[in-house]
């Protein structure tokens, strides 16, 4: 059953999650190989974001297991919830970028990027600063290093948020609708950074409504609805020739 997981970096088994009476995830199974880029698409409320949040345990699943690069957690009755230390160590290995950036407003761009390495990895300040500048360079914002987030555009904020996540040298990167809060003309600069990461071989799970981007950059597309994975496969199949009626109906809202 697990022969396919030889080089898997992310393994999700039988994952389930409910918020009160509302079931958001039902028996989700997903394997991502190292360097894989998975685009998670689906209508609002389909559970995509919750699934992503379960991967770094910002949301604690009710059942099943999550494994990222060898560290795994199982959930369910009788399973103890991981403690603060274990959770933090696990989360440090996954980078996450949020829809609303969530930059720290009391810190400059560089300080935002340095925060993880300083506080979590206990890096010396000079080294953290040097690495932060390199990352800001990489996302094209070296000149904004000492600027506070309030003075940056949405696209710039999101690129800094990506740099902040990368500063932890994560095994995988999770993107949660990172262009949904952006003005249309700013979407491209963020997608370009993400495309660059994919080209470098970063393992990525991308929750997105950018269907064209999902098709171009994703090597696998997963369509979710009502907490279930309805269909998954290479983009040319799921996006160009979806098998399921639900997928077709969802994709009919987009220009492909």
């Amino acid at each position, binding site marked *: 059953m697990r022969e396919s997981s030889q080089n898997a970096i992310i393994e999700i088994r039988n994952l389930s999650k409910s918020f009160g009476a509302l079931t958001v995830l039902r028996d989700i199974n997903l394997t991502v190989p190292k360097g894989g880029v998975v685009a998670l698409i689906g209508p609002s409320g389909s559970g995509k974001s919750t699934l992503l949040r379960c991967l770094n345990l*910002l949301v604690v699943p009710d059942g099943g297991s999550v494994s990222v690069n060898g560290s795994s957690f199982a959930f369910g009755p009788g399973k103890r919830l991981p403690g603060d230390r274990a959770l933090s160590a696990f989360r440090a290995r996954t980078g996450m970028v949020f829809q609303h950036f969530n930059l*720290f407003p*009391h810190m400059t761009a560089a300080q935002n990027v340095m925060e*993880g390495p300083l506080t*979590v990895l206990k890096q010396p300040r000079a080294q953290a600063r040097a690495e932060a500048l390199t990352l800001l360079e990489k996302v094209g914002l070296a000149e904004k290093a000492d600027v506070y987030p309030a003075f940056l555009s949405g696209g710039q904020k999101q690129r800094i948020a990506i740099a902040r996540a990368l500063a932890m040298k994560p095994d995988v990167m999770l993107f949660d609708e990172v262009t949904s809060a952006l003005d249309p003309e700013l979407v491209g600069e963020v997608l370009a950074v993400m495309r660059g990461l994919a080209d470098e071989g970063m393992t990525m799970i991308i929750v997105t409504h950018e269907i064209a981007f999902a098709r171009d950059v994703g090597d696998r597309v997963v369509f979710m609805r009502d907490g279930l994975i309805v269909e998954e496969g290479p983009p040319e199949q799921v996006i160009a020739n979806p098998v399921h009626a639900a997928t077709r109906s969802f994709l009919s809202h987009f220009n492909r």
Partner: protein
Amino acid sequence: MYQWDFDVIYTYREVLAVGLLNTLYYTVACIVGGLLVGLVEAFARLSPLRIVRLPTHFLVEIFRCTPLLVILIWFYYALPVLLGIQISALTAGMLALSLYGGAFYCEIIRAGIISIESGQREAAQALGMRRADTMRRIILPQALRRMVPPLMNQSILQLKNTSLVSVLALPDLIYQGQLVTHETYRPLEVYTTVAVIYFAILFPATLLVQQLERRLDVKG
């Protein structure tokens, strides 16, 4: 027609000066005490443990919903009987003022902390930051900026609240004023002077808070 005579104030200036110094001393003591109480209560009220959260909430509400004058008298007269120990007027007064002020400080601190968007905590957690680091590095620095103006306003109230300790015969500005009144039979001059002194301290303080509010606002 009443003949105002402020000469008596000058004659008794040292008596009033002692009162002013004591008022300032009580104020500092009950601000520091109140902040400490408020800080502990705020974190207790934010605790995930019901057994910590609920009793603290109850304690805070007791002090928020009882007049300070009643609390002061109760601490001086009833608490010693209850505990079977002696409490000086100073201890009772400072304890009452600190716990009373602390209840309000607690709510200010708690409100400041929970006003920080959940995305901030999530971003810190996603980086792998531990709970204490998240509070110390991310939540508190932002919350503090929002708390400072209301904390200062509450501290101004603390100064005014100290005027009630005179009922326990603590020699604050009001109490010393009463002494001067008894000596001179000039209550109008004495209480006018006392009012002017309070105003002269508190008016600049409120201006300072307003200025600070504006400055913190600009920075975002």
